[in-house]
């Protein structure tokens, strides 16, 4: 059993991290069609917020709980600034947006290096995360369980906001038909800004979870941005449930491949599998049926 459960459980935790990293992207890429390569750096900022709160509040148990909302607001505000200063001028040019945000991500990385140093800082996990529970003979760390619960919580919250709140309805209306939404009196500009705030804030929350596992690092963002994008694309752009399934699948497949080969070979093979999957099903797992061409 151990051969199966260990990778399955650790893979699920990896998938949860990927889900947290990808949720913000699903929102900005999926709903708005904006490719924000700086999203990885919002993860990094979330991680540094976790580190900073730990410097201010010494009790690790409390500081992580404080860090979550602080990271959400802080990363969200930075995302909002990014939208207002750069992205709003280039909604019609997705590839240019991509490269401009690559520039932003380079600047943010270097800023992190200058402020916090090139070496990463450890973030202490609270004591209640130190334990392990036994699942089919595998001692599963609480930390991974926390990540999974956090990811599922964020997923459920986002889903509920999109589905039931009036703000969510406005987002969906704007995505489905921007012009018609405008004639209904929805300020699509405000919706864009809020969507961006939400998406970036979610990345900040993901960053706190990552900080608990691997600490902070100026290059933390780069290692997550591409897998997160692949998850979004595999899941089907703009499809929350697709992102959920894709994140879990990628996490588990990577864990099994890591078990059979090595960490880096597993990454290579996962990328290869994703490319193969996308050639078979370029639209991803789930799609919105539209009448647009191609």
């Amino acid at each position: 059993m151990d051969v199966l459960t260990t990778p399955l459980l650790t893979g699920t935790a990896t998938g949860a991290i990927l889900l947290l990293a990808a949720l913000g992207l699903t929102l900005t890429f999926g709903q708005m069609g904006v490719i924000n390569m700086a999203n990885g750096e919002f993860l990094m900022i979330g991680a540094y917020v976790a580190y900073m709160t730990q410097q201010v509040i010494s009790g690790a148990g409390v500081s992580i709980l404080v860090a979550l909302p602080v990271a959400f607001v802080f990363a969200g505000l930075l995302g909002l600034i990014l939208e207002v200063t750069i992205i709003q001028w280039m909604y019609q040019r997705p590839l240019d947006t991509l490269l401009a945000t690559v520039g932003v991500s380079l600047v943010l990385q270097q800023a992190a290096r200058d402020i916090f140093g090139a070496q990463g800082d450890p973030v202490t996990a609270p004591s209640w995360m130190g334990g392990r529970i036994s699942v089919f003979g595998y001692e599963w760390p609480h930390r991974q369980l926390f990540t999974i619960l956090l990811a599922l919580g964020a997923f459920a919250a986002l889903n509920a906001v999109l589905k039931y709140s009036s703000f969510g309805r406005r987002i969906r209306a704007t995505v489905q038909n921007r012009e018609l939404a405008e004639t209904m009196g929805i300020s699509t500009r405000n919706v864009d800004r809020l969507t961006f705030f939400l998406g970036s804030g979610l990345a900040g929350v993901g960053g706190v979870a990552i900080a608990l596992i691997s600490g902070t690092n100026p290059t933390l963002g780069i290692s997550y941005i591409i897998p997160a994008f692949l998850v979004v694309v595999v899941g089907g752009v703009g499809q929350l449930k697709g992102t959920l399934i894709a994140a879990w699948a990628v996490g588990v497949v990577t864990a099994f491949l890591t078990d059979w080969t090595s960490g880096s070979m597993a990454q290579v093979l996962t990328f290869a599998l994703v490319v193969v999957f996308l050639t078979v099903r370029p639209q991803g797992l789930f799609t919105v049926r539209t009448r647009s061409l191609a």
Partner: protein
Amino acid sequence: MTVTAASTPEAAATDAATTAPAGIRRKPLPARLFTTYGGLVAIGVLAYVLMVWAPGSMSPFRLGNLGKYCAFALASMGIGLAWGRGGMLLMGQGVFFGIGGYAMAMHMKLEAAGAGNVPDFMQLYGDGTMPFWWEPFRSGAFTIFAIVAVPAVVSLLLGLAILKRRVKGAYLAILTQALAVAFATLLVATIKETGGFNGLNTFTTFFGHNLYDPEVKKNIYRIAAGLVIVFLVILWQLYRSRYGELLVATRDAEERIRFLGYDPANIKLFAFVVAAVMASIGGALFVPIAGIISPTNVDAAASILLIAGVALGGRASLLGPAIGAIAVGYGRSSLSEKYPDNWSYFQGALFILVMLFLPGGISSLWSKLKSLAGRVR
């Protein structure tokens, strides 16, 4: 069919010249000649600078650096073709740069080891046996063949897989960048076969010529700069050909091209393969000049650096990507000398500012200023 190319479509201009009915005012002859052959004149000027002026007046160290930038320029020109003209932002050209670079490095490593011997790092990290696929790289002719053929085949298969499935735009960009990440990870993981993170270095000879001989160094530079010029002429011809028009049309209105009976995937595939081969040749020339190839030369960050030159120079222009790549190379080395850690800020600011204010790059500066002046008046 109205096609809005960033630079005027030369072929259309000549067409109009021969078939325009009387009464339509034509541009005067010198202007028409300039639109047709102006690019060639500019290439000539660049050829003089790179081939005559630079080797005559630059120190060997500076010349070596320029050679490195020429190697980058080859890859950037390929990106210019695919992105500027074809609308395909390739964020993983480091893969093909690496294929060419590693092919050349393997040959030079085997040369340094001597006939029948195994490269030094394989004894250091492994059990001293050589993987079978290293063996053919003992032959210089095979290496040169592989530098062109391997990226062509790889990009053809890859392009068939993704372009035929109509993967485009941002998806293509992300996918190619993922390839660069995977490629670099693979290289790091295979330390026994490819030298891992350290890559391949410490070469002694280049096709039998001593690498430390200044004259040999100069000649390697001449090869790199010469190939930049050769490929510029090829691109010039390609851009004014029927194919060049089709590529731009595919970029601007892919559906319309499809309805006209062409397969846009094939049109883009050709540009993709040419870009890959150019990147590979650039990588192959980078190795003898820089004396090293390692995963950091081919990963996602390196691929993005190749794009920086294209964006700065002007993606759709003929000379923009080449000159942009050389400028970015110079900017990087001179800024790194003065402010060692701040290159990232400059590169980041370059992307943000160019994309925000000058998406056409420096080569669009003149027309932009003209239109601004027109608006003021």
